[in-house]
């Protein structure tokens, strides 16, 4: 009746730790056991929520009410984890893990460029607390990109080269790009503690899976409506290209590629990465393979 889902079951959300279980002689071990069980359950719930938000994102048109409820749940968990210090530990662990898992030579140069641009443009000091619908962080596609770099330049670079600015800025509509893409793939790196180093930690999952959710959620909400385009698109375009060296041919290829690509909705992006080509509607098999990979990554990164 219930599908097999997460590896741990949150047996009873209303469970109170057994009252008399603290032995005066061994207060710490019993308390620790209780706490770790609760943390495990909470972690499991967080993982589940993130996957759900991912799935929301993959749907052709997600259910806004559902997305909001799940995002609020994630935020609640994050707030609680921040309060008891677990959050910081996790973020640090993830940065370390990502720094280690990093560094493939195929990683696209254009990514680096835009990272730097992003920092310059943003100039934001400290990482903000995790908003459920935040603009920071890597999209989940980033992680997929890591896995599927052989998809080709286009797929990978699309993720990272679109406007580095805040979600409200776009690449001009002259490119025929759906403005929603901007929101979806624009990178803000503030969450990343080593954001100066665009090398390893920044793009790929810096913003760990947990933060990626904020991206995902933001994409979910952000792409629901086409916003009014920036009043003067050209400055934005100029800014985008101002630092770009002609040697960053990847960027040009991408933009040209985007121009000629058939129109895709924001959620088709993930599909295109996995299926080697754009398709107007999502297919469940690609979703599943992506999910498997996400699952795998999550297991490595997030929990023991």
């Amino acid at each position, binding site marked *: *009746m*219930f*599908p097999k*889902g*997460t590896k741990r*079951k*949150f*047996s*009873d*959300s*209303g469970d109170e730790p057994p009252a008399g279980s603290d032995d005066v002689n061994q207060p710490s071990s019993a308390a620790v056991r209780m706490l770790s069980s609760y943390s495990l359950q*909470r972690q499991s*719930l967080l993982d*589940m929520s993130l996957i*759900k938000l991912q799935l929301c994102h993959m749907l*052709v*048109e997600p*259910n*806004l*009410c*559902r997305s*909001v*409820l799940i*995002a*609020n*749940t994630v935020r*609640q*968990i994050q707030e609680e984890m921040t309060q008891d210090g677990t959050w910081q530990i996790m973020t640090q662990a993830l940065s370390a893990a990502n720094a280690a898992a990093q560094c493939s030579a195929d990683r696209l140069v254009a990514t680096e460029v835009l990272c730097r641009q992003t920092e310059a443009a943003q100039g934001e000091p400290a990482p903000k607390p995790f*908003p*459920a*619908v*935040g*603009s920071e962080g890597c999209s989940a596609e980033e992680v997929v990109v890591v896995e599927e770099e052989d998809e080709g330049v286009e797929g990978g670079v699309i993720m990272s080269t679109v406007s580095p600015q805040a*979600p409200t800025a776009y690449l001009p509509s002259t490119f025929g790009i*759906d403005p*929603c893409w901007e929101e979806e793939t624009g990178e803000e790196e503030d969450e990343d503690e080593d954001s100066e180093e665009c090398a390893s930690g920044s793009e790929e999952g810096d913003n760990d899976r947990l933060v990626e959710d904020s991206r995902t959620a*933001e994409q979910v*909400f*952000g792409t*629901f*409506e*086409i916003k009014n385009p920036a009043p003067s698109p050209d400055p934005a375009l100029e800014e985008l290209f101002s630092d770009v060296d002609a040697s960053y041919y990847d960027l040009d290829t991408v933009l040209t590629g985007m121009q000629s690509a058939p*129109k*895709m*909705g924001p959620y*088709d992006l993930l599909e295109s990465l996995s299926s080697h080509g754009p398709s*107007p*509607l999502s297919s469940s098999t690609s979703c599943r393979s992506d999910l498997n990979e996400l699952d795998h990554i999550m297991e490595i990164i997030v929990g023991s």
Partner: protein
Amino acid sequence: LRAKITVIASLCFVPADIISTVEFNPSGELLATGDKGGRVVVFQREQETKSQPQRRGEYNVYSTFQSHEPEFDYLKSLEIEEKINKIRWLPQQNAAYFLLSTNDKTVKLWKISERDRRPEGYNLKDEDGRIRDPSTITSLRVPVLQPTDLMVEATARRVYSNAHTYHINSISVNSDLQTYISTDDLRVNLWNLEITDQSFNIVDIKPSNMEDLTEVITAAEFHPQQCNTFAYSSSRGSIRLCDMRKQALCDTHCKFFEEPEDPSTRSFFSEIISSISDIKFSHSGRFLMTRDYLTVKVWDLNMENKPLETYQVHDYLRGKLCSLYENDCIFDKFECVWNGSDSVIMTGSYNNFFRMFDRNTKRDVTLEASRENSKPRAILKPRKVCMGGKRRKDEVTVDSLDFSKKILHSTWHPQDNIIAVAASNNLYIFQDKVA
């Protein structure tokens, strides 16, 4: 609340698609269902005849039409589902019947009318409809109306489109019979029934930065008598009552109904289960009923800080919220209905169970809508869910509940004790046993 509920005309219709809405018209003569395939099926109650008195109350198919088709939004490259989210009838004002049906984006006004005559004797075409050669016509005649078999036809009289960016979850006809509201996740729009190319936005909760979005509108309804008053519910468990006379944009409410959270039951799922899935004004207009995941609440419009009554629909699920979150059942949106006299309320649950609560006697009953138990004229047996431990013979344990069988949509006849419940693609009609 009489204990005996009999089955009439159960399974009288098994549409191909999952039923997504059911609604009696204001006289109770007609019952409309909308399904996932965009079709509307209207049933009509058989007239009472002396020769077959027991046949009174049976509903037979009256009209079937395709209300909405799947569409493609080219701007966003998204498909728009044809599933009918809601049907609302207009009160009958002439021989024809009118209803509003809506999918995620477009509301349509349908006219259902009978034709029992047709003109015959055209000059320019013959009886089969073939065009005649004008050179062969030697004389003119006046077409005459001849009786024919009864035909019921449905025509789309108005199409109200392009007013919603998000998914429409409710429509509600005003008591002035001239306007109605359509509601999506973030906005409520007011329409004049005659005018399709413009609507007024009267509630807008979209934040300027979508990242700040934490609450959506889940349902809205006009007050049954006060044409200036309507209410809308949110995903955070609150209800706002608004007066359209105060200002054009009703973002500030007149009344705000919310029950403070019970800290002892707080969990990560508290917000999700507080999300209101349906609101219904009582026929009297004095009360408002809301349905959240585990309870039905009746609010007095004059008391905002807590509900007048709270009824537990399936509290045995409280300990299973994590599993229900995992399999997404926690997001199911159940509807709730009043009976004609506002003394009994009804709502659906899982395992094809539905629950009725008598507000006066405080008694409640759980019934099941299933093929096995619903032979015509059969009497429904009350069901019981047991929490665990010893299970009596006819009881159902919580773990054996079928969560894929849920009764989300139901409707109650405006005067009589006749109810219609939708269980996936089956429609069940039950009525009180006549002594």
